[in-house]
């Protein structure tokens, strides 16, 4: 049975899988449905559409139903927490004890983590229902989810298109009703870009706000876990759950976080949004330009002011990112050598040959490209020219944002230069692929929080996202602005037809 595109607006009674976590929490609280029923609804939806979307690498329906039953017991006992019983997809790079975690790679194709990532522990403690591991670009290296060893994920709005990456599986699952909410990770835009391409809401929190313990590292100084949902209310609930200090992660910042749901209803009148000219001079796509200017009108209607500003070092963002991230990756991925776990080549002569064959067989082309880039850039004699220079640019970008935030409360810009593109369109042109992240990468470089929210649609009916960027640890401000925007608009309520 196909659902109308705009299910909630024409009197149609929604299926459980179509609802938000906030709505489902109320349904659970009032005992109108059980977590098992919700989970079954989602699993049923997965049965119907997963063949077209391919959002998951590993589905664990049985353990999901076990968790749902446990959640129902908690609810019956009055021990429910805000997200108890809500089904969630997690990106395939977060370690779930005893459940296959592959990072989208052949080299970890059969890896069963002996421990839970901190975020997974938080989900379990909350009583959430973990559905399985969502597809991703191999080791989160990509902007399209095409580099996954398990094959690409398809954009639920048009299955010929990429969903964006690298958290394409997590995002597509939420967009397609194959999960209520999801966790992704964002190193250069990997949550925000697919959220933009698939018409959902996603946030990359401040670096240090969410524990990275158990997140399989790509680029440690840039990686950050964040939530993906259909609207900002759900996002606030998930931020409440996952933001917090973790002594197991030395880069996790010890501080108190506000109740993010308290910012869902705060007025935004009088706030100022900054428009960086370096971003807007890059806009070539008329759909994106139109969506941005319509969104600006919405904010202006809410008495939000706009100010032009400059982030002069933004242009170097991509270049510096493609030094720093590969350098860290070349070291982070050195442990996949066939000695301890994961793939090991069957035939080899001696130790070095085992390393070489294992890694040649286990890694895909994009991962190899970045390992080689990083190894080269860190080599004796090149370090100063590449890594050190990139680190300096990073400092400059951070201070650019710092000055910008003296003039505005948040920076406003597109999430991506265009709507989603075709599967296969850019996979053989790494530079074009890398440029997809031009608006998102600087946010990681500066360690700032950035949110992507649905801003409208292209003439062809594809979602187009907005991006808001706030000072460090001002996620609440992003929630506040996005909630105000979503109250005025219905882009986030539209669902793809599958």
């Amino acid at each position, binding site marked *: 049975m196909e659902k109308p595109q705009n299910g909630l607006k024409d009197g149609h009674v929604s299926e459980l899988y179509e609802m938000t976590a906030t709505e489902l929490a109320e349904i659970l609280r009032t005992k109108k449905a059980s977590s098992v029923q919700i989970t079954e609804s989602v699993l049923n939806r997965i049965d119907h559409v997963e063949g077209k979307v391919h959002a998951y690498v590993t589905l664990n329906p049985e353990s999901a139903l076990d968790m749902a039953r446990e959640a129902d017991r908690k609810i019956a006992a009055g021990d429910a927490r805000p997200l108890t019983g809500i089904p969630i997809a997690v990106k395939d790079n977060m*370690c779930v004890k005893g459940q296959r975690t592959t990072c989208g790679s052949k080299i970890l194709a059969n890896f069963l983590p002996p421990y839970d990532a901190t975020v997974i522990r938080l989900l379990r403690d909350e009583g959430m229902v973990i559905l399985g591991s969502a597809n991703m670009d191999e080791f989160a290296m990509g902007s399209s989810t095409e580099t996954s060893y398990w094959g690409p994920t398809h954009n639920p709005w048009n299955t010929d298109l990429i969903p964006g990456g690298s958290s394409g599986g997590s995002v597509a699952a939420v967009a397609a009703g194959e999960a209520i909410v999801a966790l992704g990770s964002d190193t250069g835009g990997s949550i925000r870009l697919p959220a933009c391409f698939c018409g959902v809401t996603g946030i990359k929190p401040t670096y240090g706000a969410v524990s990275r313990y158990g997140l*399989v590292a790509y680029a440690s100084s840039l990686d950050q876990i964040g939530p993906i949902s259909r609207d900002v209310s759900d996002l606030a609930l998930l931020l409440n759950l996952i933001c917090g200090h973790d002594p*197991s992660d030395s880069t996790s910042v010890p501080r108190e976080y506000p109740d993010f749901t308290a910012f869902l209803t705060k007025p935004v009148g009088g706030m100022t949004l900054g428009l960086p000219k370096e971003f807007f001079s890059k806009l070539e796509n008329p759909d994106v330009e139109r969506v941005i200017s319509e969104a600006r009108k919405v904010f202006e209607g809410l008495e939000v002011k706009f100010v032009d500003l400059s982030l002069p070092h933004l242009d170097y963002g991509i270049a510096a990112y493609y030094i720093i991230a590969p350098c860290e990756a070349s*070291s982070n991925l050195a442990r996949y050598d066939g*000695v301890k776990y994961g793939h090991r080549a069957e035939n080899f002569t001696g130790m070095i040959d085992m390393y070489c064959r294992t890694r040649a067989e286990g890694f895909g082309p994009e991962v190899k490209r970045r390992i080689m880039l990083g190894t080269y850039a860190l*080599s004796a004699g090149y370090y100063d020219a590449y890594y050190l220079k990139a680190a300096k640019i990073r400092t400059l970008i951070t201070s650019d944002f710092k000055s910008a935030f003296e003039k505005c409360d948040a920076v406003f810009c597109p999430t991506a230069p265009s709507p989603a593109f075709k599967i296969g369109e850019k996979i053989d042109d790494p530079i074009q692929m890398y440029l997809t992240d031009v608006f998102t990468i600087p946010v990681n470089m500066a360690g700032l929080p950035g949110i992507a929210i649905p801003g409208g649609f292209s003439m062809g009916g594809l979602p187009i996202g907005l991006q808001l960027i706030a000072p460090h640890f001002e996620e609440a401000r992003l929630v506040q602005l996005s909630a105000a925007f979503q109250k005025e608009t219905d882009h986030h309520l539209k669902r793809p037809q599958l």
Partner: protein
Amino acid sequence: MKYEAVIGLEVHAQLLTDSKAFCSCTTRFGAEPNTNTCPICQGMPGVLPVLNRKALEFTVRMALACNCKINEFSRFARKNYYYPDLPKNYQISQYELPVAEHGWAEIDAGEGPRRIGITRIHMEEDAGKLIHDDKKPLSYVDLNRTGIPLIEIVSEPEIRTPEEASAYLRVLHSILVYLKICDGNMEEGSFRCDANVSIRHKGETRLGVKTELKNMNSFRNVQRGLHYEIERQTALLESGDRVLQETRLFDPSEGTTASMRSKEQAHDYRYFPDPDLLPLRVGPELVEKIRKELPELPMEKKERFIRDLGIPPYDAGVLTASRDMAEYFEKTVGLFQNPKSVSNWIMTELMRELKGDETGITNCPVSPHQLADLLKLVDNGTVSGKIAKTVFEQMYATGSNPIDIINEKGLLQVSDSEELAAIIGKVLDDNPGEVEKCLSGKTKLIGFFVGQVMKATRGKANPAVVNQILSDKLAKRSKM
């Protein structure tokens, strides 16, 4: 001599923390392979390191004891290389900003005190161990040691002889043990040393081509390895050859070195700051706190022994070479307030026994209390000094108290004048010829009479009393 050697040492010391450097696994030695491990030290995907603060404190302790400047900010860096005993295929170490720099240690290799500069002291994690199957082409890896905290102490290339190298190592070793931050066990590898050595013409200021020596697991082997290497390099230069920059392995059974890898095969470690660990801050408050808690160091102790206790410099050096020996000495002095006498006993009798047993002071069967008791018995005349040496041997062999041994073996000193007078009278009566010669001026014969008395009393006669009675009796006989 035409050439001089230039030697720099890199010392690795395992820190005596309860848990590993970046995870909470125990550091206990000798467990079943791979039992003292967790996802973090196994290098599982997604794990993160968290610094053991105790390891940092220990490092600062050593740095202060070596007169280093503590860097307020230091950084961990990744040293990247592939080896199966290194699960992450990088070692967390320090590179550009170590914990401490610019220190020195004072050594004396027999030519007077000299300072050897210490370039830097940094923290890092140990690797695991490979165990090779002796039949099949198979290797096993044991990760119990992986992640145990190490400090690396790098000297300036200011050491000139193998003897100085050995003296420098002994100084570092004794400081580490004094600070109770390393057990100093060279055989188990908790104190290891690599040496960089080159030679040059005397008077030359530029450095020659160096080789790096590995696998010298005792003070003696460091000396042997360096001697061999200096001779080898000298022979090369004298025959018109060149020294190749390479890493060489010392073979303790042959006393030689052999090439392990050349400069071309050397690793490019691709150091970069570890993004998983924040810059490390060691503020002045922490430095002062640790400085206040430092124990008296070997050099300070030695000076105090010389100055306050009147111990000769050489003896003071021996007594302070290990913290345990110094503690033994000071405990004994606390119970018997004659430091010189205690020192003499330790330096001669005690050391002889320990050396014979090839053991250290910690295994000494005679407690400071027992030694002090024995010295008191000598002091109050209960036993003679000579007999006391026999008693000490018995104490060392059995662990018994001195007074029990003296009673049991009937070794009490005879100081009773009447008893001795009778024995002396008999000795003089038995040797009329010697008495006559003695009285006519051959006074050396007094020693002969004393010897006879000692023989008769089996050494138990109090020599002072014997001398007194003997001279009285001889005086009487001369008047007859």
